[in-house]
């Protein structure tokens, strides 16, 4: 019974995302199954948390049936809306069945390696009780309370809690954090029928699986042939820091990276083809970043310069460069100052110490060869960097890098870089996007769009 519940907990959001991403106005005519399934789960998972917030707003007590029924109604509505869209999806030229000789063997080997990896990570989730620090200090705290109470009890800072100024309020290490991640755990707990801080984290495995599906699908859409597309999917799913965040589930960073990465991949395709589905999905997922974590606002904003460049290539490029330069001057001019940004109290202070970055990115095995490969790709393909097909993604990458540079070189977050606590988690947010950028930069797209 519990297995059925868990399956329902994973499949209902997935189905919800899939049917709504086939809605007629999104014109899902040029996407493949891996793309739809990949985007479907993450869209559905985020939508599930929004449904739960709406139910709470309406005063409906959380439960498997209240949430499940709402999801079911929405699934039916989505399916009805997309009833005229054919379920047979487009195929992108040669698929794996058409591979010959060693390529087919290599494809099968890669699939096997990915399967072993994901199975192992899944078992870690299933066996190990909630382990990493923030997971029990600021995420699952809310999940536990909301699951038991059946509604979104407020979380307030310790001083307010002690003063008793908000009735029924709880407190934890980060009371102001958005509710999406704990709500996913709450939904899984209802689906399971009891509190279990191991099994409630299965969405982290789903996140990795569907990130891989979406990545593969979008790489194929970029006309990358099946074997290299799967090789890069393997590269992505084998990143040690990504794997750690699946195995030791409970942090929001994996979802942040997946949602941002999916937004970036869709943005890349939209910027080249103006495909409605890709554009709509890019927008939805960029906004989705905000639901996950406070820095998601920053990640969502990184799309603005890229959008500017896509619409006005020359003015956008010059403007973005100007904003970068003026921003840097302003930051140096401001000097030491305390400000509050996106809920974070920031102490502005410039200090550029690259050692922690070099050690974490290129010496310790947090990322395998990702940063070497990215650097190599930029050097080898420097002509392509500002070509029309890659310009938007390049500016997105520059925006993302600038965002991290400002955070780690101009604020007190530099201390979290020096003690290694935040560097890799922040880099995880942009890792899927970067991997996709390497793909589009390095792999020559075929001339014709395969039918």
């Amino acid at each position: 019974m519990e297995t059925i519940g868990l399956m329902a907990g994973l499949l209902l959001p997935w189905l919800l995302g899939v049917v709504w991403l086939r809605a007629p106005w999104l014109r899902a005519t040029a996407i493949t199954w891996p793309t739809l399934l990949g985007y479907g789960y993450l869209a559905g998972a985020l939508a599930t948390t929004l449904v739960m917030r709406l139910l709470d707003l309406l005063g409906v007590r959380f439960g498997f049936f209240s949430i499940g029924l709402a999801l079911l109604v929405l699934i039916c509505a989505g399916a009805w809306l997309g009833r005229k869209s054919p379920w047979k999806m487009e195929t992108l030229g040669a698929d794996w069945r058409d591979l010959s000789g060693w390529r087919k063997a290599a494809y099968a080997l890669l699939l096997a390696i990915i399967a072993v990896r994901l199975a192992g990570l899944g078992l870690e989730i299933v066996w190990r009780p909630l382990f990493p620090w923030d997971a029990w200090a600021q995420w699952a705290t809310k999940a536990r309370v909301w699951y038991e109470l059946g509604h979104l009890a407020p979380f307030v800072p310790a001083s307010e809690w002690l003063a008793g100024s908000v009735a029924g309020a709880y407190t934890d290490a980060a009371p102001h954090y958005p509710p999406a991640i704990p709500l996913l755990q709450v939904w899984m707990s209802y689906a399971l029928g009891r509190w279990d801080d191991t099994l409630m984290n299965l969405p982290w495995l789903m996140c990795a699986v569907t990130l891989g599906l979406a990545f593969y699908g979008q790489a194929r859409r970029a006309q990358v042939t099946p074997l290299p597309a799967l090789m890069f999917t393997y590269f992505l799913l084998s990143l040690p820091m990504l794997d750690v965040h699946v195995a030791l589930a409970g942090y929001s960073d994996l979802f942040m990276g997946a949602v941002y990465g999916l937004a970036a991949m869709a943005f890349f395709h939209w910027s080249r083809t103006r495909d409605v589905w890709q554009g709509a999905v890019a927008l939805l997922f960029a906004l989705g970043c905000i639901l996950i974590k406070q820095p998601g606002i920053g990640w969502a904003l990184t799309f603005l310069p890229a959008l500017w460049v896509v619409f006005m290539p020359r003015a956008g490029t010059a403007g973005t460069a100007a904003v970068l330069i003026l921003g840097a001057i302003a930051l140096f001019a401001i000097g030491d100052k305390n400000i509050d940004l996106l809920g974070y109290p920031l102490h502005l202070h410039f200090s550029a110490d690259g050692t922690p970055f070099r050690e974490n990115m290129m010496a310790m095995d947090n990322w395998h060869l990702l940063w070497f490969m990215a650097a190599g790709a930029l050097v080898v393909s420097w002509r392509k960097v500002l070509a029309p097909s890659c310009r938007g993604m390049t500016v997105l990458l520059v925006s993302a890098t600038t965002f991290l540079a400002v955070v780690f070189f101009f604020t007190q977050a530099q201390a979290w870089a020096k003690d290694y606590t935040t560097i890799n988690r922040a880099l995880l947010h942009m890792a899927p996007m970067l991997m996709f950028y390497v793909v589009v930069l390095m792999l020559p797209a075929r001339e014709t769009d395969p039918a």
Partner: protein
Amino acid sequence: MTTESPSGAIARLMQKPWLAAPLLFLASAMVLSLVYQQYNFSGKWLSGPAPSSWSGDALTLSKGQGYSGKDKLVIEGLEGEVAVASLSLPGFQAEDFAFVDWTITGMTPGVEMEFLWRTAENRVFKRPLTWTGDVAAPLQMAGDKSWRGQIAGLALVVKGRLAAPMTIKGVSLLSARAALPIMIKKWFVIERWQATSINFIDGDAIEQDVVPVTAIAAIALLALVLYWGSAKYKIAPLNVAVIWGVVFLGWLALDIRWQTNLLRQLDLTRQQFAGKSWEEKHLAAEDGALFDFMRQARAKLPAAPGRILYFSDDDFLRGRGAYHLLPRNVLADNALPKAAQFKAGDIVVLYAKKNAGYDSARQVLTWDDQSLQADALILAGSNAMLRVR
């Protein structure tokens, strides 16, 4: 019958991407490993004596308490926070052996170890032992200026506080020929999940002579350069598949190391938690005692919802303990607030908390210059759960 020239054979091999990429990668790895060995052990890595090994029971415990037997020496206690295990030798030439490898188990935090050696001139030198995971890293002695001449004795000094007995299983002297196997062995030392794993892994890498990621990147880069050279001089046609094949092999090499670690960790996780219920898993976890205390505390809490104020000096115990008390409404803090901020009916939980005590006779909780009337619900050593009157 025609005879194919060597360059023709190479060209033919290089036209097969599935073969060319591994060959290039292998060739590059060999070149770089030769360079590494020659640079570090000029000439000596080609020849050298067979390893010399002694089991733990060959050592004499000249200071500290313990016993030897069954090929091991067990150190059970220190004498003035020091234990010394020494080994007298017939003597050997230091230059013949580039590595000293101690096999030790039971190393606990708070203990430091030093390797000492005595020369024929009766001079004594020392080097601290370093650890990779919970394994003593082989000491590379080749670069040590004091490691020369005739060596007459070896010793191991243990300093600090011994929380549990530790076992010396033996010591080996290895020639420079063992350099590569030792390097690979270091790369594959298991790294278990720890509190920092969510933030970074492979922290020991930056302490190693040869960092795995950098080494593999160098191998892949050299392979690509070799391939580029062979294409430039028309030995082989340029094929993108070969380039990606080399990158893939580099990635795979690192990933095999990572996958091996994941599988070994998964086995440890399975042994510790598989087949247990949610609560049994927490009891089996590293903070099992804390979970058990909080479970008892939850069972004794009044049914009516109320405030719980939980105090502990330790960051981990504080946050984790509060989590175990959920879904009850709990505040976790280090310092107790002023007594005026407590309300009647508040529950106070103290766990590993110094500077706060409960006087059972007077039924008073005291801390700093504050005091509060409270009833004891649980008193377990220095830990307690109280209800404010």
